């Protein structure tokens, strides 16, 4: 039967060793046992052995795989767990005790002086003696080195080498370096002293032996040299000081004389001065108070010279130009710092609506200045006064109809004056609401201009001047109210588009051209994006592309649009495909149709008023204009484009055709020739390199090269994704993690241990206290008891006596 139980096995083992089942019943056997006791050691060993073999859990066998074999050989592979624990416990206990002893004992002062630190079995007297000795030795050593130095320096410095005391604070030969001392000692020289003390039995001159030999200067020597030098300088300085003192003394002696002379003059003026000051002092506070409320003086605007004015103007222009360029590149926010930003902020909050605008307008109207005035040249004003009646009569017309009614009563020549009067009588500063009236007037004048150009008699050359002046008025007004006219102009653009959709012919009118001209004239057409110019551009180009250019009149209209389209881009040089398209269409028309172009007429500008009255003979003039504008487009816009060659490819064959057709007309042939040669020049200059649009910064692609293991082991796990460095890093990280975990565990263990100890201590303290109290109570009780007993005895005795 297998003995499975631990206890059974233990019993069997003990029996085997004869430690079990023996009973020492008799005295004899007891004696025997005593004898046996002598073998106690061996017996104890055996018991221990049995215990070890039986207690499986108390042993750890090291992992053979990992452990070094050699180490294993030396170490007992089977170490007792309990022993280890015991050791650990003891060490912990010790550290705990030490810590406990040290608690609340921080910041203790440690005297590092000789004999104070560490062990020194010296009495106070001996200590002092030792210190004295050390001092002597040091001084001697220094003297020796000094002498040696003197020799080597060949007495360069006639140094006075007096005795040097270690504690001599007056010593000028101080190193010049500030040293921390304690009790006159350098704090860091202790070691030297101890060394010296150890060597105190050595003969003193030993140190000098090696210094007899000529050698390089020690640091100390160099230092002393420097010191000597500085001393010399110091001495010289002192000399100079003395000299100066003497001079001052001389001057001081003279001072008495000067003073006496001064005194005689001072007395005369001294008294009245004091009186004045007194009065002033009384007024002073008041004056200060009044001055405090006074407006501070500010420098007046200087009257600028003509040149400065010019400069200023130029500066302003430059600033404007800069802003324009920014707008051209599509950067808007930098325009007008504060106002603009405010607007943009409002936008961000989504507050921009009509109400807001109204409020703004109202605010503007509240504080009109004379700056808001619309001023015309003085000459005209005077002229106007004669013809037109009192200005207060005029109402500001709010619609075009009103204006027409108003103007009906005056001859055409006075219309401009009337309008000027209206404006003057409604200057914003004169009355509230005038601002809005003038805004309306701007719209009305705009409409009036268009109306005039459409209805004007073709032969009426005189009224042209009115148009010019009206344009000037309009520009002046729009300068002020441009922002308020946005909706109006956008509405006009929309209505033009609607009309165009209904019938392409309906917009071929002088007013359409005038509309675009005025917009281009007033607004900044180079902007990257513009609320009015961009839609206008779309419209112009739509007309250019979609109108059928089969009649002279339409072509004339197109030529005008072409010039406007080109004019819009003079600064920004943007490309409009429709312009080119129109030119090809127009040239095709001139190429194909048999238009009477026989007679050569003079070049004449196209007349806007006569747009709808195209005569047949005009065709040559239109063609000339077309060529002129084409040349302009070529030189202004297309020339700068990369695809200029391609543009020329489209144009050139048509021009050649045109040239052959109209060879007979000299002026035409010349201008065509000129354009063709222009095109050739441009082509020759242009290198026309292929595009490099995708010239971006190169982006590196991770390059993965195959890695070969020399001794590839299929069982081993390889981490191919990582570089060796990364591997190393990962390993270290892991280790750190492991260790920190271990350390944390350790800390917890420690704190638990100390906690346990502390509680134990506390409990024992409490117990001790309770016991003490008990004892005291007991003693009191016993004493009281005995006293009572005594008392009872006494009582009984007395009673008994009775």
């Amino acid at each position, binding site marked *: 039967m297998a003995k499975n139980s631990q206890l059974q096995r233990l019993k069997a083992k003990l029996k085997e060793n004869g430690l079990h089942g023996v009973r020492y019943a008799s005295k004899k056997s007891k004696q025997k046992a005593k004898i046996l006791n002598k073998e106690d050691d061996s017996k104890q060993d055996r018991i221990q052995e049995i215990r070890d073999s039986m207690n499986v859990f108390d042993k750890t066998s090291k992992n053979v795989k990992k452990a070094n074999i050699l180490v294993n050989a030396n170490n007992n592979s089977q170490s007792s767990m309990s022993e280890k624990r015991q050791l650990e416990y003891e060490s912990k206990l010790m550290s705990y005790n030490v810590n406990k002893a040290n608690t609340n004992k921080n910041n203790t002062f440690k005297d590092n002086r000789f004999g104070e630190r560490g062990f020194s079995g010296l009495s106070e007297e001996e200590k002092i003696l030792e210190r004295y000795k050390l001092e002597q030795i040091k001084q001697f050593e220094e003297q020796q080195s000094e002498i040696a130095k003197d020799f080597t320096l060949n007495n360069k410095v006639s140094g006075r080498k007096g005795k040097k005391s270690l504690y001599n604070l007056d010593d000028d030969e101080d190193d010049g370096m500030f040293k921390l001392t304690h009790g006159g000692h350098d704090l860091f020289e202790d070691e030297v002293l101890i060394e010296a003390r150890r060597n105190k039995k050595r003969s003193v001159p030993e140190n000098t032996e090696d210094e007899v030999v000529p050698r390089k200067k020690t640091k100390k020597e160099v230092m002393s040299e420097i010191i000597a030098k500085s001393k010399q300088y110091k001495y010289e300085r002192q000399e100079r000081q003395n000299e100066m003192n003497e001079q001052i003394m001389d001057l001081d002696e003279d001072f008495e004389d000067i003073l006496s002379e001064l005194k005689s003059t001072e007395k005369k003026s001294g008294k009245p001065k004091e009186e004045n000051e007194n009065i002033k002092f009384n007024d002073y506070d008041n004056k200060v108070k009044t001055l405090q409320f006074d407006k501070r003086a500010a420098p007046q605007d200087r009257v600028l010279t003509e040149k400065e004015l010019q400069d200023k103007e130029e500066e302003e222009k430059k600033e404007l130009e800069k802003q324009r360029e920014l707008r051209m590149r599509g950067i808007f926010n930098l325009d007008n710092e504060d106002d*603009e930003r405010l607007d943009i902020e409002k936008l961000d909050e989504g507050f*921009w609506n009509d109400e807001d605008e109204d409020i703004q307008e109202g605010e503007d109207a509240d504080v009109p200045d004379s700056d808001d005035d619309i001023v015309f040249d003085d000459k005209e004003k005077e002229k106007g006064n004669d013809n037109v009646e009192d200005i207060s009569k005029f109402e500001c017309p709010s619609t075009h109809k009103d204006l027409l009614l108003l103007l009906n009563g005056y001859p055409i020549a006075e219309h401009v004056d009337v309008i000027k009067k209206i404006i003057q009588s409604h200057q914003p500063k004169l009355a509230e609401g005038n601002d809005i009236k003038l805004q309306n007037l701007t719209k009305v004048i705009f409409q009036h201009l268009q109306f005039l150009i459409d209805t004007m008699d073709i032969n009426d050359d005189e009224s042209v001047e009115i148009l010019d002046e009206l344009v000037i008025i309009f520009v002046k007004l729009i300068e002020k109210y441009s922002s308020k006219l*946005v909706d109006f102009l956008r509405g006009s653009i929309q209505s033009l588009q609607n009309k165009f959709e209904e019938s392409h012919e309906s917009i071929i009118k002088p007013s359409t051209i005038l509309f675009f001209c005025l917009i281009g004239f007033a607004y900044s057409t180079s902007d990257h994006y513009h609320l009015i110019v961009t839609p206008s551009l779309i419209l112009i180009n739509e007309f250019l*592309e979609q109108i059928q250019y089969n009649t002279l009149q339409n072509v004339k209209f197109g030529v005008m649009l072409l010039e406007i389209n080109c004019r819009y881009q003079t600064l920004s040089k943007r490309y*409009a495909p*429709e312009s080119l398209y129109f030119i090809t269409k127009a040239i095709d028309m001139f190429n194909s149709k048999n238009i009477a172009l026989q007679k050569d007429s003079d070049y004449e*500008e196209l007349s806007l008023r006569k747009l709808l009255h195209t005569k047949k003979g005009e065709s040559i003039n239109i063609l000339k204009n077309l060529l002129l504008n084409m040349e302009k487009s070529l030189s202004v816009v297309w020339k700068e*484009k990369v695809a200029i060659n391609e543009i020329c*490819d489209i144009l050139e064959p048509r021009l050649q055709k045109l040239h052959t057709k109209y060879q007979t007309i000299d002026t035409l042939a010349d201008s065509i020739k000129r354009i063709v040669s222009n095109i050739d020049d441009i082509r020759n200059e242009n290198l026309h390199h292929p595009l490099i649009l995708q010239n971006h910064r190169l982006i590196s692609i991770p390059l993965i090269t195959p890695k070969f293991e020399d001794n590839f082991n299929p069982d081993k796990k390889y981490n191919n994704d990582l570089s060796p460095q990364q591997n190393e890093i990962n390993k270290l990280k892991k280790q750190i993690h492991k260790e920190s975990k271990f350390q944390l565990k350790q800390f917890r263990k420690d704190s638990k241990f100390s906690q346990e100890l502390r509680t134990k201590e506390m409990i024992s303290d409490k117990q001790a206290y309770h016991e003490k109290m008990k004892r005291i109570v007991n003693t009191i009780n016993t004493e009281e008891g005995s006293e009572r007993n005594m008392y009872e005895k006494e009582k009984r005795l007395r009673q008994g006596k009775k």
Partner: protein
Amino acid sequence: MNTFKEQVDDLYKSIVDGGAKNYNNILKLTSFYDNYNKDLSSINDENEDVMKNLRYLTHILYKIFYKLAIKLQLNPSMATNEKEAILYKWLRKNYDLNFKNKVIYYYIGNLSNENSLSLDCIDILMKCIELEATFFASKMGASYFPNKTLQKLIITLFNESNDDKSYMVTHFSENYYQKYADVQFYFQIELQSLFEESENNIKLDSNLNAGYWLALVNHDNNYDDKEADLDVYVPHPPALMENEGKFKTAFENNWLNILSNDKITNEQFKMILTILHKRVIPRLNQPTKLMDFLTDCYDNKESDLSVKLLALNGLFNLMHTFNLEYPNFYTKLYALFTEELLHLKYRSRFIRLIELFLRSSHLSINLVASFIKKMARLLLTASPGAIVSILPLIYNLLKLHPNCMILIHDPEYVPKNYELYDKVKNIKFEDPFDLNESDPEITDAINSSLWEIDTLMSHYHPNVASLAKIFKQPFRKLNYNIEDFLDWNYKTLLENELKRKIKILPSLDLDENTKGNKLFNNENTSEKKKTYLNTIKW
């Protein structure tokens, strides 16, 4: 004097109440028409009295015949004795000749101006068809369709005349043809037989007929459409109507007949081509019969560019679904890229197709590069709408055929590549692209570059310019959905602009140096002031 209406009412009453002996009054009623027919021009919508009377008269007559039909007195085969048979035959003759021929067909066919009477007549004729179908069958409840009556209507409608009868055709189409399957079926069958007839009542070479035909078939509610929601007009349609093949054949023949009409107008022709791929080809028995027609349209050098574009659509449909072999397809496609191409109305339809054709990754780079280069060239004169739809297409093509990237980026000319660049730095680059070469495989476009696109980066419209700038950026987008870009035109662009909120106020620029101080030159002044525009004067 009794009013016209009273007279008619009296006669009507006598006929309805008086029985057979008063039937002669029908003749009296029909004779009323003679007064009006003397002067046909007086019958128009302006003469309200005349119209009213005629309408009322016609209506009453129909009512009378309807009453008679209910009594089965119009169907001689229903007669029980000889006497009745004679009466019935007389009545029937009256109905056919005096009423239908003299009145209805007469007014449908002979009134020159658009008027409401003709429309009413069509309505009444259709009612007659219903009546006939119900009562004229050999026996009650037998399936019958009065195809002769319908045929007569077709003849009257399609008969050659100088008058435009499209308003009637539209009326017929909207109210009957598009609603009733049996009407459609018999219409096609009858029309086919009419076309085939040797004596030819219908002249093919009339431009009006094609218009009538289009008015009838240009819709999506056809007899053979699965999802079409169609009713049956007559109460007992014959079983023949279920024969879809017959309908298709008739439909196809009619189409071919119409298409062979050489008087067809250009507008109608384009219209036919636009609906061809959707509303015609799927309904034909043998769509390949259209092949010749389409290839002819497509190949014909004289035909309009838009006709070619439209023919291409149908042609593609045939190639795609019916495996039509078409040689030199891409060469002919390439030939379509002419200067007008991007200015046509059918631009977006074409671009859609082009995208489809060039999507194949098996095309040679030479070919793709030629197409790209040609499109880019056309963009130099294109409208913003066209530019906006072509640019994403080019982007997609470049993405699909990365070899073509050299068109926008030639590494040889990157200044950083010193070795390469130094060689070519000062040499003028000769563009090898041959614009006039008709074969896209040998234009040498791949060795050229897309300068046109670079130029478009400075387009006057800021959005177009920024779209062109996508070619400057890294090609990170997979591709663009062309559909998103096809619908732009001037109108939508402008609307978009005008819808914008006022964020930044419009800036003025009144600089006299750049703008001058006057708008135009004055006519008479010789001194040249600086003016805004130089070639225009007031």
